[in-house]
């Protein structure tokens, strides 16, 4: 029995105390503005405890990571995709791959329920569910030569569950792309500054691509620096353009932007990777890491006061303007990335397991990266909660609800209990040099306002508009990259599926197949984008819940695969590690699906909504917020599509969970029947620390190893 020394006990007691004080202040403070410092304290204290105790317990007691076992990177090292990568580098890689627009958008929207529900879910969710999922998937995929989630589902659960998982993943990809594109359209519409600077990223990426392909192959760091410099120039130039005679050219209506975006997605996805995708990815990674660091610094330096209520009335009434439905289950599906995100399972299986040096490092890479993403989500929540709540609601409510004039918006928002004068609304738009901030739904503009407020407190108010557009550019940049990369992944899945019907599709470089499948994928997400932009009830309001549901359903697939694997690998006793998050996730998500399909509240239930509008059409009436009979028909069609889609997704996931349960039960009854496809143990020759900072024993071991093998590094 190991006894902890006094110093360790004192240190961890202090950490626990910091976290506990943070939570107490957040939960108990009423009536006055609480400093964001308490949110930071609650988050960091909880993360530290979760990482030190729970993650360590899972890694060593449950998964039993084995430092003598060679990882795929060591055994199959080919110098390209399989290679043992330094843990600190891989942490950066993995973090850059999992963190995107998701953790920035969800928390902003969830702030309509107040900052407290979102904070609790982001922090508790990541510690007990999200980070656990990422780490366990990473572990099992590492033990299977980096197999993807789909392959693992097929091999370990069966062809039926596997096919359902694959189909769900495809549907989810389409919805994801549609919703992310919608976020961009809402941020760029009628904004010549934003549109110009985002448009400029295309020629910048092309120049970078050419440089890397022809002039100086592989010099990524220098070309990224050039790219970032050009990007900042484009950002500054955006203001000149917005003030010049060109402004009209770059002032685009939402429906025009839809066409541009779909065309961009299609062309970008059939161009060679080196031309646009690869250089864009360098740019967005650079910007992502840089901006997140800046934001963390900004929050810690300024420690702004949270002005949003801890819990708003919308949480219990369920009639919030940003998205309909009550706190349970909708906060838990609105915030996916940052708390629990199914998409991470696609990164944790596949790419990262092929690069991990030692099995002991999965805690740091899998669990640690996810904690970092969670802190990004906390910062997004801070940014949304420090702006005037009246402005928050005016920005995030659909125009069908608050109208298109500042007077009207001020009045409607006032009726919800948040006072903001028309002059204040107009000034807020002026400060960031936008024509209007009303109904800029989707989260990105709200985040940008919050970020500009934090940054300009450090740099001075004169840079406010610059920081706003900087934040918009930063989000738009990686959403556009995601559109391109996501279309390619969707196409790849589709080629695989269609290949079963018509063989040439299987050949991924067959040009006609490539163009057709790219076209189909862009058409599909383009449809949702189009619908979202023209939705009289508000696109984000209608579509974001479907996006949240689908992301959480993918998490259910990942957790089902993990639980099955825990059971099949003789860890039945510990199956609750992923079993409880799975039960929670399935409950939340299926409840949300159920309500979206069957609720009798027309703001929540798609089919009830359809019925209300259809009845009105039959009576020849036009119901607000629809303005014409055409709008009425649009609502009916959209509600039907959304309702059917939600139902289909839910059924697919129930299929996966039932099939997984069947496999688990069979294994418990007759273990001999099930096969486990784990690669055999091979002795590892690499010696490397498990955590970020090596312990004394690890340093000594490394030194001994270096002497023994005659190499030094």
């Amino acid at each position, binding site marked *: 029995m190991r006894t902890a020394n006094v110093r360790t006990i004192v240190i961890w007691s202090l950490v626990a105390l910091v976290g506990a004080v943070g939570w107490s202040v957040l939960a108990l403070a009423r009536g006055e503005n609480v400093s964001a410092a308490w949110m930071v304290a609650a988050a960091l204290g909880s993360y530290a405890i979760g990482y030190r105790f729970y993650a360590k317990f899972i890694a060593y007691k449950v998964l039993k990571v084995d430092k003598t076992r060679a990882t795929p990177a060591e055994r199959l090292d*080919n110098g390209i995709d399989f*290679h043992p990568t330094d843990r600190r580098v891989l942490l950066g890689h993995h973090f850059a791959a999992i963190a995107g627009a998701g953790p920035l958008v969800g928390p902003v929207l969830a702030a309509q329920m107040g900052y407290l529900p979102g904070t609790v879910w982001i922090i508790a969710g990541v510690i007990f569910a999200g980070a656990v999922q990422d780490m366990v998937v990473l572990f099992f995929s590492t033990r299977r030569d980096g197999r993807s989630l789909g392959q693992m589902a097929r091999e370990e659960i069966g062809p039926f569950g596997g096919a359902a998982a694959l189909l769900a993943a495809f549907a989810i990809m389409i919805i994801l792309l549609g919703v992310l594109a919608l976020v961009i359209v809402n941020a760029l519409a009628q904004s010549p500054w934003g549109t110009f600077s985002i448009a400029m990223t295309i020629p910048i990426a092309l120049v970078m691509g050419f440089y890397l392909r022809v002039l100086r*192959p592989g010099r990524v760091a220098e070309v990224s620096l050039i790219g970032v410099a050009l990007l900042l120039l484009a950002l500054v130039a955006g203001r000149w353009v917005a003030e010049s005679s060109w402004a009209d050219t770059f002032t685009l209506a939402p429906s025009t932007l839809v066409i541009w975006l779909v065309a961009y997605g299609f062309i970008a996805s059939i161009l060679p990777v080196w031309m646009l*995708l690869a250089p864009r990815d360098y740019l967005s990674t650079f910007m992502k890491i840089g901006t997140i660091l800046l934001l963390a610094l900004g929050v810690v330096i300024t420690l702004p006061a949270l002005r949003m209520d801890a819990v708003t009335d919308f949480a219990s009434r369920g009639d919030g303007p940003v998205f309909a439905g009550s706190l349970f289950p909708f906060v838990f599906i609105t915030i996916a990335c940052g708390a629990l995100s199914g998409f991470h399972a696609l990164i944790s299986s596949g790419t990262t397991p092929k690069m991990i040096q030692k099995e002991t490092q999965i805690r740091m890479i899998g669990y640690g990266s996810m904690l970092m993403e969670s802190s990004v989500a906390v910062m997004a929540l801070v940014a949304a909660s420090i702006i005037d709540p009246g402005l928050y609601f005016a920005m995030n409510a659909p125009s069908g609800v608050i109208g298109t004039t500042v007077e009207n918006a001020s009045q409607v928002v006032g009726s919800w209990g948040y006072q903001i004068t028309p002059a204040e609304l107009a000034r807020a738009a002026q400060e960031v040099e936008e024509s209007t901030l009303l109904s800029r739904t989707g989260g990105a503009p709200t985040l940008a306002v919050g970020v500009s407020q934090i940054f300009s407190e450090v740099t001075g108010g004169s840079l406010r508009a610059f920081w706003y557009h900087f934040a918009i550019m930063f989000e738009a940049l990686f959403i556009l990259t995601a559109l391109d990369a996501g279309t390619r992944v969707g196409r790849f899945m589709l080629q695989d599926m269609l290949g079963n019907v018509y063989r040439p599709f299987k050949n991924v*470089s067959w040009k006609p197949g490539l163009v057709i499948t790219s076209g189909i994928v862009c058409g599909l997400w383009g449809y949702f984008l189009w619908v979202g932009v023209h939705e009289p009830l508000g696109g984000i309001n209608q579509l974001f819940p479907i996006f949240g549901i689908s992301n959480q359903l993918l998490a259910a697939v990942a957790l089902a695969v993990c639980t099955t694997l825990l059971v099949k690998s003789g860890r039945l006793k510990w199956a609750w590690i992923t079993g409880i998050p799975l039960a929670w996730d399935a409950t939340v998500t299926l409840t949300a699906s159920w309500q979206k399909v069957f609720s009798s509240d027309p703001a929540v239930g798609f089919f009830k909504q359809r019925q209300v509008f259809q009845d009105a059409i039959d009576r020849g009436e036009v119901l607000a917020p629809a303005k014409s009979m055409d709008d009425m028909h649009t609502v009916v069609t959209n509600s039907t599509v959304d309702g059917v889609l939600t139902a289909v997704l839910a059924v697919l996931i129930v299929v996966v969970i039932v099939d997984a349960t069947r496999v688990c039960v069979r294994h418990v009854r007759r273990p001999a029947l099930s096969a486990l496809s784990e690669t055999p143990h091979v002795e590892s020759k690499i010696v490397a620390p498990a955590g970020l900072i090596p312990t004394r024993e690890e340093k000594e071991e490394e030194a001994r190893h270096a002497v023994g093998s005659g190499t030094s590094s």
Partner: protein
Amino acid sequence: MRSAVARALRGVRWYVRELTDESAYDRYVAHVRKDHPQAEVPSRRDFERMRTDRQEEDPRQGFRCC
């Protein structure tokens, strides 16, 4: 003092090169020399082309999350 600064700068350079995968070519050359001494080492240009072509074939490599 000076050597500490130099070491820190070297560390930063190393990290940036690794994170951006600028060091991919050096790593590959080292790998070929060590494990396949008879094989020919491709030029940097050819290597970088091969790398992006691989991504072309399987877009799930290097996929980014939402």
